[in-house]
């Protein structure tokens, strides 16, 4: 073995390469981690993953639906409840799609949703056909869906812990205010209010309420399912 400079360089030169890459990776990663920790500490934030949806335990939340039109039905599907008519239509659509060889997963997606541990216990709609559709589709032997004549009846019945409001826009604020004053949790979508004065009134109602007020905007989310542990942090 000849220990010339050339031999030593070519034989051992790979070691510093290894060391450099190792050092760069380790130093870069730890520096980034330290920077992140410093920012979090400064902001006093505990990073945590969003709570997983499948683990919701305890008594199911009793939900009332106000307005069971197109959006009402869609929101109920997000909660895990579909009408018999919709399921039949989707099955037909899926069969057709299969025949034509194109993908169609609406029904599958619906069935694969995470369970939210809630019950639909009441519905309120001025249109008989729609209210009856909800009663017919969502009632189970142990949990019949009750139809209420007005939203006030439903909110004040004491049998509903949370309401999903899917009515025409000008009803959003009055119904939300009524529910919050009775400590009933609210999910309502944009527009939250119809007039400026309503906005302030709604803010007061939300501040003084023990219930959670949630406004859906673009994307409905799953927070409704966690209401029992949610507390005032989720409010307005």
């Amino acid at each position, binding site marked *: 073995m000849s220990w010339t400079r050339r031999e030593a360089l070519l034989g*051992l030169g*790979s*070691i510093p390469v*290894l060391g450099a890459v190792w050092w760069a*990776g*380790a130093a870069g990663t730890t520096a980034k*981690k330290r920077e992140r920790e410093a920012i979090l500490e400064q902001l006093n934030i505990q990073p945590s993953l969003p709570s997983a949806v499948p683990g919701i335990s305890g008594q199911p939340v009793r939900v009332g639906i106000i307005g069971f039109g197109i959006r009402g039905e869609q929101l109920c599907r997000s909660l895990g409840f579909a009408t018999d008519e919709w399921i039949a239509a989707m099955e037909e659509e899926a069969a057709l799609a299969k025949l034509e060889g194109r993908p169609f997963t609406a029904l599958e997606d619906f069935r694969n949703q995470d369970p939210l541990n809630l019950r639909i216990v009441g519905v309120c709609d001025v249109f008989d056909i729609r209210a009856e559709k909800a009663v017919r589709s969502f009632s189970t032997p142990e949990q019949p869906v009750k139809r209420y004549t007005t939203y006030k009846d439903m909110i004040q019945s004491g049998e509903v812990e949370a309401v999903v409001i899917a009515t025409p826009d000008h009803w959003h604020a009055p119904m939300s205010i009524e529910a919050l004053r009775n400590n009933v949790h609210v999910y309502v979508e944009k527009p939250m209010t119809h007039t400026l004065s309503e906005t302030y009134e709604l803010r007061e109602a939300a501040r003084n309420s023990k219930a959670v007020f949630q406004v859906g905007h673009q994307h409905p989310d799953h927070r409704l399912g966690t209401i029992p542990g949610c507390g005032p942090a989720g409010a307005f």
Partner: protein
Amino acid sequence: MSSTSNRWGLRQSITLLRVLIGWHFLYEGIVKVYNPDWTSFGYLATAQGPLKPMFQALSSEAVLPWVDTLNWAALVFVGITLILGVFERAGALVGAGLLLLYYLAHPSWPGMAQINTEGSYWIVNKNLIEAVACLVLFYHPTGAVFGLPRIFSKNKTTSKTEMS
């Protein structure tokens, strides 16, 4: 000896390729080793293509820690072997296998969603090219050109200057 000098450029190029691929693997591995929050979950959960069920099964809570550990261990192994030139053939093979798995998890085939890719690809992407490069390394070990085996190798490649 004249045949050796003809192949000078080729051997040195493959050696350079080996060190660079090793560099890439080692850095990817080290970054994951030093970041305890790193997980392959997102990559596996968004898998596409025919092997989607397999990759999604790997992302389940029970196996994920093993998959993560195996992944960084394999990356570091490939990195060390290719840079130092020791067990380089095993390293090249493991590297090609890993890259093929990455390729199959997110194949750049027409009609598949391209998630987290920075370029435009049609069937061929960087993972596939690097996998084939690993194949070249497997068939052309170069540890005796540059790397620890050179110290122990009796069959040294001659330098450009021929000595008679």
